[in-house]
């Protein structure tokens, strides 16, 4: 089980220990991961979070990211949008207001203590993690097909885990991950509907605490969505994803 965890949280690090067997980019990538693991995990957190508004005709929506977090990383996640104000409900110019929140758990970490008890490992310390975001999204339709939105959100990801020492590039070693990142994020975006069940959304976000830049381009179908996130300063710049969503 421990190997599974290590593969999950530090797979790149493990393969980079055998530098002669891996591509040339893997070792520098692993070293960059060590220098800033917070950013890499925060990007995965952002993969799970959805800052776009709920559909106008609904009271809200729920969404989960399937690939590449729930599978293969066992990083279960749920994104909830609750429409607290309909567009033009008070004044013609009143925007739609959504409260948007998300929560995530890495299932493998949660079952790790049970597995480790079996091993009777006295040094084992239970991993802890925190993964959530909360914020507001304001949306205004500018045509029957196009909506513009902006939001302000507080996003948090923290992880504290210790494991057996792993060699990195033959010299560096790593035996724990202590990650804590919280950021206040401004998001602006646009959504364009192509048909009854098809739409496209693009947004760009900026995190004030770390000068964090990210963006998402996503195609929505009735239940599924397919897209990619862009992290220009990230370890992996493009994160493709597949998600599912339901209107309420």
């Amino acid at each position, binding site marked *: 089980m421990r190997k599974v965890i290590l593969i999950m949280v530090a797979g790149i690090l493990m393969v980079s220990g055998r530098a002669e067997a891996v591509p040339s980019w893997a070792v520098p990538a692993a070293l960059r991961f060590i220098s800033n693991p917070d950013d890499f995990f925060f990007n995965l957190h952002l993969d799970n979070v959805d800052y776009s508004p709920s559909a106008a005709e609904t009271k809200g929506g729920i969404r989960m990211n399937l690939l590449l977090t729930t599978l293969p990383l066992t990083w279960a996640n749920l994104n909830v949008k609750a429409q607290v104000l309909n567009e033009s409900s008070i004044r013609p*110019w009143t925007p739609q207001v959504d409260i948007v929140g998300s929560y995530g758990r890495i299932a493998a970490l949660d079952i790790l203590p049970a597995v480790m008890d079996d091993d009777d490992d006295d040094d084992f310390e239970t991993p802890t993690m925190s993964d959530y975001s909360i914020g507001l999204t304001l949306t205004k339709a500018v045509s029957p097909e196009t909506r513009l939105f902006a939001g302000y959100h507080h996003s948090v990801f923290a992880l504290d885990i210790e494991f057996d020492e792993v060699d990195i590039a033959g010299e560096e070693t790593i035996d724990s991950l202590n990650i804590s990142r919280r950021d206040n994020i401004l998001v602006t*975006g*646009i959504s364009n509907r192509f048909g009854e069940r098809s739409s496209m959304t*693009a*947004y*760009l976000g900026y995190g004030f605490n770390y000068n964090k830049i990210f963006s998402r381009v996503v195609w929505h179908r009735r239940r599924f969505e397919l897209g990619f996130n862009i992290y*220009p300063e990230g370890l992996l*710049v493009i994160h493709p994803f597949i998600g599912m969503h339901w209107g309420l």
Partner: protein
Amino acid sequence: MKKIALLIFWVLILVFAPRPAVSVEVVPYYNYQFTQGASISPDGDAGFLLNLSNDIGTIVMPADDHSIIGYYSFQYQGPGLKRQEGREFRERYLNHVFAGRHHWSLGDMTLQSQLSIMTERRRSGTNETWDSGLYNFNRYGGSSAVSLDLYGIYSTISLGYHYLTFPNYTDMLAEIRAGADASSTAGTQNHHSLRMAYRGEVKNNVFWLSFNPLFYTRQRVAVDRAQADGSFYSSTKQRELIMNMGGKRSEKLSDRVTIAPEIDLTLRYSNQNYQHFEEATSTTPVSFHDDFFDYMEPSLTLPVSVRLGSDWTYFASPSFSYRRYMHRNPRDSEGNFVGGEKQNRLLGVHTTGFRKQTGESSATVFFFTYQHQSSNMEFERYASYNYDGFSLGIRFHMEY
């Protein structure tokens, strides 16, 4: 917490305030653009380019003759797919622009006033964080313009002022060269910028003329002999004047073909001179060059677009610019100045591609750019002056 309470208070005021007697028209604007490209040098080295930009604005029209525009723009440009650090580091920057503009229609005349703030963070080396970038700068200022019909020409006359500060800028080599009496070079890039411009429009033709004087607040002018303070700088502050003039014509040749040729001339004058040192780390200058930074630069662009159907458009944009320094001699491959001629370079940037409209407000562009430069400057230890290469990429764009 106090800020959040204040924000909620204002939101409630806006939502529940009594209805104004005059209806206020609000028109939002949004532009999202994502570009991912790759470039290939003559040596076969691939480089990547990623550009993310985001403009958001609102036009509020409280009365028929007044409109107020609030505008925010965010842009990032960097190496993209292959994030390059260490010795392969490539420069990247991000900037934010906030602007507010007021339009006032007075019959045939329009008055415009604008205030803006810009902050740019630039990482020019892997050792820099976003907040410690050597070339980070902030820009504050505004402009006013009047538009009216003058002798059948729709004319806009504008005057602007901006102040640019570079909070982290230092020049360690300059400080070392100045010796024991050196004063800090911090703040030597700070400057005031004025801009006076005229723009005229007649039918499909646009032409313009602008003057942009720059006044540096601390940077002094280099001289050819040591001064009383031991430095090679006089007490005169650096000043520059950038003049630009040009014209453009948009012509629809048929229902499908549009061309928009543009010519442009830039002249730059600076009172700054140049002290030449044999090596970057030398402390004794070996030659002095007057008006080293003055140049003239004509350019020509010939854009053409061809509509291929309801969704597809082909475009091409060949562009040439020729820069000639008025007083600067070129250098041979050893770095020695060559007399009898002036440094020049010819730069060509030719872009072609297809644009696909993918929805009411979205489009995708596939582009290919060939770039070449030739120069009589042969000293290329620190920068390339003679090269060619190409880049290609895809740009996704959503706008309303």
